[in-house]
């Protein structure tokens, strides 16, 4: 199969949808001629024009709110928030408005909107452009939260997100944009709320999100050579969360390591760990669940400091070994 990058997969998914559905349009800062801060919308303005590839003023709360207004009146906007840190500027529209309108209005109206946004560290953008805030949004009833980890998943999950009648926050890790992988040319959909077993194993279950899926797979290869067999599960969507796949895996292995880049304290890993221990998998646990996450610090600028602020492959290996009491 042909290989394309994560970034191309996202662009292709949007372009295919926009050809099919005239209600879909794209809105965001510098997404037109510039092609978006990370080049995701590169060239799209040529095909779809500036009405549907709509450059906005720098006013995140304004245009996100406009997207909500256009969604509830029948459009299917895709909003690009240049950095996921800027979600905090839009948060009223996401949390108080988009997520709640249908409920507040007694089941009338819907807000079919996709908010795409690059997240994560690794490129030296420091504290205000490198965060992973998915747990904030996964806390909000009414939203859906997606975190793809491969080009294939990115294309299929984005299609599902665009087909959703609810507001979806779609996190794209900056460090994954250049990752290549096999992606079918035709449009396809990966259902939200379905986890993917990225690698099968027997001894320990690693539940990892976004770029940590890739790091966990790397760790699993190294651990294999030491005789430790890891199962790597990518939930792909935090909200809804495929609890069943996680629970079944932990029942099999008896051990779980949860890895995300977001700050560990209050991170979504705590939720996953709780889901495991509240489930029937509890009786199969043969070690405390390990949580790995970013340190409790703002992301620093210096590349070495930055690297040390979030889990790396070696940390995952160590975390896995901790569950089997080896060092």
């Amino acid at each position, binding site marked *: 199969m042909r290989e394309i990058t994560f970034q191309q997969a996202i662009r292709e998914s949007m372009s295919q949808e926009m050809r099919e559905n005239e209600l879909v349009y794209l809105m965001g800062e510098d997404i037109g001629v510039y092609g978006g801060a990370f080049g995701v919308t590169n060239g799209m303005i040529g095909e779809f024009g500036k009405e549907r590839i709509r450059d906005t003023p720098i006013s995140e709360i304004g245009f*996100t*709110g406009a997207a909500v207004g256009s969604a509830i009146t029948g459009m299917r906007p895709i909003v690009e928030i240049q950095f996921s840190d800027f979600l905090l500027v839009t948060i009223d529209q996401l949390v108080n408005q988009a997520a709640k309108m249908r409920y507040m209005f007694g089941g009338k109206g819907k807000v079919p909107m996709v908010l795409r946004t690059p997240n994560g560290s690794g490129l030296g953008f420091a504290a205000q452009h490198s965060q992973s805030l998915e747990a904030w949004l996964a806390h909000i009833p009414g939203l859906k939260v997606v975190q793809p980890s491969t080009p294939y998943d990115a294309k299929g999950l984005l299609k599902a997100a665009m087909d959703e009648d609810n507001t979806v926050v779609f996190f794209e890790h900056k460090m994954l944009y250049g990752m290549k992988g096999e992606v079918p040319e035709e449009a396809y959909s990966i259902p939200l709320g379905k986890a993917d077993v990225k690698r099968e194993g027997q001894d320990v279950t690693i539940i990892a999100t976004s770029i940590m899926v890739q790091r966990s797979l790397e760790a699993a290869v190294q651990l294999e050579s030491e005789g430790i067999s890891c199962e790597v599960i990518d939930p792909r969507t935090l909200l809804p969360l495929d609890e069943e796949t996680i629970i079944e895996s932990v029942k099999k292995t008896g051990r779980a390591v949860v890895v995300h880049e977001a700050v560990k304290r209050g991170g979504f890993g705590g939720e996953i760990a709780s889901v495991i221990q509240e489930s029937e998998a509890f009786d199969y646990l043969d070690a405390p669940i390990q949580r790995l996450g970013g340190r409790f610090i703002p992301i620093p600028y210096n590349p070495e400091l930055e690297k040390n602020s979030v889990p790396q492959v070696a940390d995952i290996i160590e975390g896995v070994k901790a569950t089997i009491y080896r060092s």
Partner: protein
Amino acid sequence: MSTQIGNLDQDKLLQIYYQMNLIREFEMEIEKQFMRGKLYGTMHLCIGQEGTAVGAIAALEPEDKITSTHRGHGLSIAKETDINLMMAELYGKATGISKGKGGSMHLADLDVGNLGANGILGAGQAHAVGAALTSKMRDLGYVVITFFGDGASNEGAVHESMNLAAVWELPVIFFCENNQYGMSGSVKDMTKIENIADRAVAYGMPGHIVNGSDVLEVMKVTQQAVERARKGEGPTLIEAKTYRWKGHSKSDPKKYRTSDEEKEWIDERDPIVLFRNKLIEDGVLNEEQEKKILQKVKKAIEGAVEFAEDSPEPSIESLEEDVYA
């Protein structure tokens, strides 16, 4: 007897008169029910502001849309939401317009083009921009009035929305009901400029100031803005000077203003009295018609209360419904 004022015929004028009275009676009724403990939470009454709500919305066609405010009962009634469903919602009943889940602050009725009252100031203006964008992109021809107060006019989202609407030339009317107070904050203390409408120039749109106690004047100014919007010429900012007779919410002792000030607005600038006098003066309304109209209002309110009180409470099973589409 003349049956017309300007280009408005008697039916339209009496309809406006009926709506203004219906709003006032509705508000007085729910205030009474609230104090009797029948209603829950809080509510924000718009008694005294009937001229702005009815005047502005009278300028719209049924397919046009509004976004409403937390002080939005009058706007809902003017946009012709069934007051039975409104009353039931305030009672928290299953038959309410939002099945008892939204209450006073989130009254919406998408079927009549009310995209929702909002508990967060400034949010509705952005929604209006989006709704107008839909209208423009799909060539639907409707316009959107977004209502907000003098308080919300200082929200960043309002400014962002005005800029967006202007730069995209969207069919939006930013309608500021300047009732002089944002909760307890006097507009004089919160805003350096005399008129909110002056801000229009900063976004490249026309700004108008209108006497909110004169329903026909409000309607006339709004009509001009609607016309401009429908022609694709973009948004307009209208500021209507008005006054809320009651406190911000039901727990407000109104320490921040004088009774002299209240008296002046109530005695001399009551939009209903002023409109009634004009209708009688112009021979559009006689005493018998007035009696009939007020009778109709009374009946409608009584019917709404009866409907609400007879309606079932929402089931606990409905609790988790409608979170997702």
